[in-house]
């Protein structure tokens, strides 16, 4: 089975650019990834593309071939949709495609245009990742769903708003030097606590922003990278995907995410590593509580112990296990279809040493990404390793 190399990465700046079309955003990221890889469009054998709300935001379905056209790629192109895990799933499929020998070069990524919908429209669009009959019709929003999990977590394992606030503060601090991030500014615990409530106990600063943006990776087989003398030291060595029941109320746990447990176990087994080998992580912190659930699913902290990790300094950039050095979804932004692949793009840069926060993981060899869809009815985990 061939090794899968990340030959190039491309990201637009995440943020509010309501006038930019999805095709323009993805063209920028895709072309940057190809340039970064030193791979020509003609070498791309397939496009795997993640997008969630294109029909609602742009009245645009069938986006695969549209995005191939946008980057000048004449190859089969398929859109993957798994809510906020859309491009994470696309990456997982691309990895399988290269490993099974079907392709040597795949362009994979995603894009989302959201801010043109406004806050109410985006809230409505995001809500459809939940069960429409039994959750959305009962007033459920996405922040509301994570707030239900946060309160369940507090009841079961303890914790308080200040613990969650420390996560937001940490991720904003990490985003400051990241020019791709939506919010390059620090915030304080007080800012988080005093911000307007969205869904109690989650306030405005516990929540990721509504974002526009795109991400792309050029993935190649090891053989192609060597034959073409590509500078591609980072490999995807493990991939895993898990699923769960759609409605939160139907699940065994209200304060845990078994889909991510399964994805992590599969990815670690695939890579032949354990959680103890992980040097740092990029996790799906769409809300502050989501980072806690993610870290516990990844086995980086015992269940019930992730809540205090940021507050205790364990997951800060100077800590023993930095989490979300990119700024995470919280501060870097969350154009949902772009997020999963963007996590791998950020991690590849961190491992290559060309990310503004690479100094905090100098000497690190192993990172893990965690991308969740909905209230974690979908989860995708990838293990990345770098040649030293």
């Amino acid at each position: 089975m061939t090794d899968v190399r990340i030959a190039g990465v491309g990201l637009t700046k995440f943020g509010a650019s309501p006038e930019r079309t999805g095709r323009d955003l993805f063209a920028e990221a895709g072309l940057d990834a190809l340039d970064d890889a030193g791979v020509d469009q003609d070498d791309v054998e397939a496009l795997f593309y993640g997008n969630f709300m294109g029909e609602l935001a742009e009245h645009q379905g069938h986006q695969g071939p549209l995005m191939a056209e946008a980057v000048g790629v004449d190859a089969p192109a398929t859109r993957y949709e798994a809510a906020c895990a859309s491009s994470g799933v696309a990456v997982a499929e691309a990895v399988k495609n290269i490993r099974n020998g079907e392709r040597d070069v795949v362009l994979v990524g995603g894009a989302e245009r959201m801010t043109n919908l406004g806050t109410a429209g985006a809230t409505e669009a995001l809500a459809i990742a939940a069960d429409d009959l039994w959750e959305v019709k009962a007033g459920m929003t996405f922040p509301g769903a994570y707030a239900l999990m946060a309160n369940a977590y507090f009841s079961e394992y303890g914790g308080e708003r200040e613990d969650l606030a420390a996560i937001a503060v940490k991720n904003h601090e990490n985003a400051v030097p990241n020019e791709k991030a939506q919010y390059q500014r620090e915030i304080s615990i007080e800012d988080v606590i005093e911000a307007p409530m969205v869904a109690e106990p989650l306030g405005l600063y516990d929540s990721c922003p509504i974002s526009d943006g795109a991400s792309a990776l050029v993935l190649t087989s090891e053989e192609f990278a060597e034959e073409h003398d590509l500078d591609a030291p980072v490999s995807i060595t493990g991939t895993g995907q898990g699923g769960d029941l759609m409605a939160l109320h139907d699940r065994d746990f209200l304060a845990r995410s078994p889909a991510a447990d399964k994805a992590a176990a599969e990815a670690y087994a695939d890579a032949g590593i354990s959680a103890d080998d992980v040097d740092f992580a990029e996790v799906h912190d769409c809300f502050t509580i989501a980072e806690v659930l993610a870290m516990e699913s990844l086995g980086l902290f015992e269940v019930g112990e992730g809540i205090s990790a940021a507050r205790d300094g364990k997951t800060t950039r100077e800590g023993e296990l930095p989490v979300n050095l990119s700024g995470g979804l919280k501060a870097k932004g969350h154009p949902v279809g772009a997020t999963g692949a963007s996590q791998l793009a950020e991690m590849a840069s961190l491992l290559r040493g060309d990310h503004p926060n690479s100094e905090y993981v100098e000497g690190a060899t192993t990172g893990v990404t965690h991308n969740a869809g909905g209230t974690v009815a979908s989860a995708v985990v990838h293990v990345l390793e770098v040649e030293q």
Partner: protein
Amino acid sequence: MSDDETYDAGYDDWLDAVEDGEAYYLEGPEGDGWLPPRRVDPATGSRELTEKQLPETGEVETFTVVHVPTPAFEQDAPFATAIARFGPARITGIVEADPGDVEVGMTVAVGVMETETTGDRAVVFRPQ
């Protein structure tokens, strides 16, 4: 119900039953409880689902107060949405109470309300 509302078989049938005082859930062979429409018990994969009477009261397991709603609930906010357990089945609903009075462990009955914003029917929990 608004004029353009679609009738969702299973879901709207269930709301009708709740309004008639005949709330039910679907029970799988190992006693798991689920809401319709459903042909398979997710816990076992069994297709043997039996309609059972829903317990008259349930208990709030977690809740949130929604301040930023979807457009369909714009005039209803702020409101408390909760997950409550009724025997083997859990249900999500809006709590018909001052949001500040809602708490974990609260005993509630299930009912149907019409939302302020659209007049659509929604699952409501009434404190007992």
